[in-house]
């Protein structure tokens, strides 16, 4: 009878815990790292790609829609970028739901959905799977980097239990503890986007298993305000742009080093 309290999502253990939810969160802490930093004039997201390899066809990522490889960082709405950690298939379904929720808000109120409201919409759904029997919870944590006129730039995190919280800098996925303590040491309240980009990349290079940072393992996105229109502008970097950024930050290792690793 060892598995009395964890075969169903909706049954409390005698200590008052929901094991399936905790397992889902455990699954996430093995997933690729996603890191977000809130700056005074923008928000920065970076993610570690897990599915890589010489034979993987990445040709679509080079040109593709909003940039990025489409594994970890998605545009949820024109004012919100989402970073996902956990089961990719579950994440796809949540991203789809978030985009629909944002468009529903646009249809009803003719404005971009406020960031916290979008996080709430997803959390309402995630919470449902902790309460109704027969279903597995979403094995996904998300970071939401967004902008709205109520609270300007914001960064939220949500987990499989349906909890969400706002952050100045946070990290989900593998090694999130290490990354969090690094961020805690280095974060300053009036940090600019430029400095935040550096902070994110440095923290990523320290927490990721591989010693070399390159577009092969990294996804990157920044949300800022367009200086002319004052509207939020989401930029998800393309692989070539990531490599250029890493080079400008001095975080790439020599090419022969990289070849040694992959050989």
């Amino acid at each position: 009878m060892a598995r009395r309290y964890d075969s169903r999502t909706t049954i409390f253990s005698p200590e008052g815990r929901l094991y399936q939810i905790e397992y889902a969160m455990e699954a996430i802490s093995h997933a690729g790292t996603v890191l977000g930093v809130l700056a005074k004039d923008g928000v920065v997201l970076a993610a570690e790609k897990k599915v890589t390899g010489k034979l993987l066809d990445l040709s679509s990522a080079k040109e593709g829609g909003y940039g990025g490889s489409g594994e970890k960082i998605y545009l949820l709405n024109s004012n919100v970028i989402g970073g996902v950690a956990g089961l990719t298939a579950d994440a796809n379904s949540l991203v789809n739901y978030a985009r629909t929720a944002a468009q529903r808000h646009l249809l009803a109120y003719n404005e971009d959905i406020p960031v916290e409201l979008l996080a709430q919409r997803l959390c309402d759904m995630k919470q449902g799977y902790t309460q109704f029997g027969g279903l597995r919870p979403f094995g996904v944590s998300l970071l939401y980097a967004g902008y709205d006129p109520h609270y300007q730039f914001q960064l939220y995190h949500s987990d499989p239990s349906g909890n969400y919280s706002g952050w100045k800098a946070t990290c989900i996925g593998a090694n999130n503890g290490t990354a969090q303590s690094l961020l805690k040491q280095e974060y300053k309240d009036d940090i600019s986007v430029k400095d935040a980009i550096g902070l994110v990349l440095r923290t990523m290079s320290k927490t990721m298993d591989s010693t070399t940072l390159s577009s092969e393992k990294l996804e990157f996105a920044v949300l800022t305000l367009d200086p002319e229109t004052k509207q939020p502008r989401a930029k998800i970097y393309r692989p070539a742009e990531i490599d250029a950024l890493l080079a400008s930050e001095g975080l790439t290792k020599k090419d022969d080093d990289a070849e040694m690793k992959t050989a």
Partner: protein
Amino acid sequence: MQYSFIEPPWRPRKGYLIMAADTTAARSIVKMKVDEDKIKTLSPHLLMAYSGEPGKSLSLKDPRDTVQFAEYVERNIRLYQIRNLYPLRPAAAASWIRRALADSIRSRKPYVVNLLLGGYDTATHEPHLYWVDYLGTMTEVPFAAHGYGAYFALSLLDRYHNPEATLEEGLETLKRCLDEVSKRLVVSPSKYKVKIVDKDGVREIEL
């Protein structure tokens, strides 16, 4: 209600909005009530003035249902505020109301309600005014009016509306409009309710 209904000036840079409506509730040629408040406070920074379409409310519907619609809007805006973190901004509320009227006009028994929605956007610190009619038309304007009084008020506002005016000057312009309506309209209303919304919220004043 269907005779005259006035709503004047809006000041972007001065950060306030004045709304005025007559207080008569009439049915056909009979005044039923002279102290009706036709400006609802939808949220701490949002006002909505409403009236029936002149001439149409008689043939199509009972004037009461302008009130039905106003209460429907009031409660839905309130519900949004309870459910969510912040009240709807004026632009969002206007879009929602416009949609409600656009759905209504395509239904079996449409509402015949014209309204003005004015509010102070606490996110951007600007006042906004929206003119909405029963057909589901919406437009953002610096000043607006519905009803027979609109014919006189709008021409005066074209001439005297000043986006830089102080509150006192704004109320002066409002008085000009109301006086002209009293002078020219065959069945002019005797009393008006005047409300102001600015960064401190909604307040009612006596002219």
